[in-house]
């Protein structure tokens, strides 16, 4: 079951960069929930060149989110309290790096993985518009990617 959007927004306000601005943070949150909604555990992964074994998409990441949210107890906490709760939870998970895709280890790192693993997240890190998911044409490929304001 998907977690309530309000709860996910509370988490997003802690783990995503505030410099994204509230509107973009809300959009990332909504996009993450939509991504979870359309997730197909067990769907075949590429078996073409260089993939000798059939592999499948991993288990549904959100299975333990409700429990994780319960343990975080974000509702009613002020900003500092929320941050402390997430920090404590992540210390326990022993995750050092943001995973390449959400993997169910913790909802906080999954939300970060969803954002930083996206085309928008990559552009945000590099500070330029690479726009890797777009079909960008060949014309401007030799130019420096446009800096994000």
């Amino acid at each position, binding site marked *: 079951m998907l977690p309530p959007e309000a709860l996910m927004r509370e988490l997003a306000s802690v783990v995503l960069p505030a410099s994204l601005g509230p509107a973009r943070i809300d959009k990332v949150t909504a996009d993450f929930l939509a991504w979870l909604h359309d997730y197909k555990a067990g769907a075949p992964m590429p078996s073409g*060149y260089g993939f000798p074994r059939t592999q499948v998409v991993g288990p549904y990441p959100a299975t333990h989110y409700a429990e994780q949210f319960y343990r975080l107890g974000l509702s009613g906490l002020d900003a500092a309290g929320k941050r402390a709760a997430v920090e404590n939870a992540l210390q326990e998970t022993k995750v050092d790096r943001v995973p390449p895709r959400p993997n169910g280890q913790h909802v906080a790192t999954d939300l970060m993985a969803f954002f930083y693993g996206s085309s928008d997240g990559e552009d945000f890190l590099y500070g330029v518009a690479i726009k890797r998911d777009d079909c960008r044409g060949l014309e401007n490929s030799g130019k420096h990617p446009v800096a994000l304001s």
Partner: protein
Amino acid sequence: MPVYESDICIIGAGITSAMLAEKLSELRPGVSINIVEAGRSILDLENRYKYRERMMKYGENPWPGDTIEGQAAAGGISRTMAVGGQALHWGGTCNRFSEEDLRLKSMYGLYVDWPMEWAELEKFYCETERRLGVSGEPSPFPGDKRSEPYPMQPIPLTWSLDRLREWGDKSGILFQATPQAKNTVPYDGRSRCLRCGTCDICPTGARYSPDFTFKRLLAKKKIVLHDNTLIRKLVLDDSKPTVVAAQGVNSERPQEPVEYRAKTFVVASGYTWSSHLLLLSACTRFPKGLANRTGQVGKYMNGHAFIQTFIEIDDEIYPNMNPQYGLISRQFFRCKPGDPYVRHDLRIWEAARGAPSVKDANGHILLGDDVVKDWRSRAKRGIARVRAYYDVHPTENSELTLDPSAKNKWGDAMPKIVHRRDAATEARYAATEQHIQRVFERLASNHNGKILRGNEGNYLDHPAGGCRMGTDPAASVCDNYGRTHDHENLFVVGAPTQPTAGCTNGTLTFVALTLRSAGEIAKNFRA
């Protein structure tokens, strides 16, 4: 039992099959051609954007249903069985081999020479580049002289690749854009590249894939395509060593075997399933398998080894600007006779700067903008991915065999591939590895480069072999047209016929060999 008759029966529907059928239909327009493919047809260009989106979002297979359950090879590096074959997933790289690959014995005293002159192969390289639609730029090395220009201008280098080329050239190693089967202008009814970055499923069709050729041939009624039909055995004439039938089973009507009868049979089933079918076709007169009187089927399986590293440099390099495009240097394709033998290509791609951290150096949790700040403090420099594919040569027992312990649902033993390198290759390994590391160090000596981490491939890439071509039936399966020594109407085409895999991607080469075979096969039919 349903029986289908044709002049030519092609087994397999990958890139070699597509090119062969197209050329045969041009050379002999009246000839009837049945193409039999074990997997399903995936001809829906209109759905590619949808497949691409699922791949990008979730990592799902962009070619749904391109495998057959239980039909797998131990030691193989692909499971794809579908109309289009592995070339559905292909990145589109179209490098040529060099003359040295064909003259290993006469120039270096190593392994064998190919039974073919370079000038002959070069003609068919040009034809292949025209048919696939290859964009590229001329090599800076005189030994790579071409008799025709590339059909299209090269794909422009991205900002990052431009920086990386400048960096590479500073070390005195000359790089060029890798030739690609991707359109830089509308070509052959397909659109130009839009730099979508997902060449393994090109949503626009700018990257060649065999489904385009099959669709065209089907529309013109030049071929009859029988998909979902696994050929399990080739059958000989009762009195002559000629093949009269290919017998198989259609997955939708599994209780009813099906038979294909033809004047000429062509096995175009790739480096795994070609040898496999010949071995499965053993009979009283050929107890080791068809085309296998001298026991050469499945032998000399080959490929090339590779060493890869990541180099950090003072340069503004962004990833994913055109992720399946890169640079190649052909500087090390040639080795002076008498010098220690080492031949390899050298490739550079743009690379990402690593994932953000959740903890700082002191183990404190990072959240919000601190994650970005920390990442930017560590990721100020650009990263290049550098790889060298180097030439290795197989022993005779580098082979594909039938594994009786692994059977498909029809009870056929599945193939097992074990690659083995010959003594000369093993003996020069340390020197090869040292040479390549020195090349990496040479690159890193510019732009304040630092070699980060490296790895060596634990498999042979761009595999080939198993039905080696040659003039001596005791040491080969077929002649240089792919005609098997034992059966005048049975041909093998594509990667299985290659004696070696050179030191760069093989697709252009095995398609060129196939187009050459097409001319010979056509001679069996009146113009």
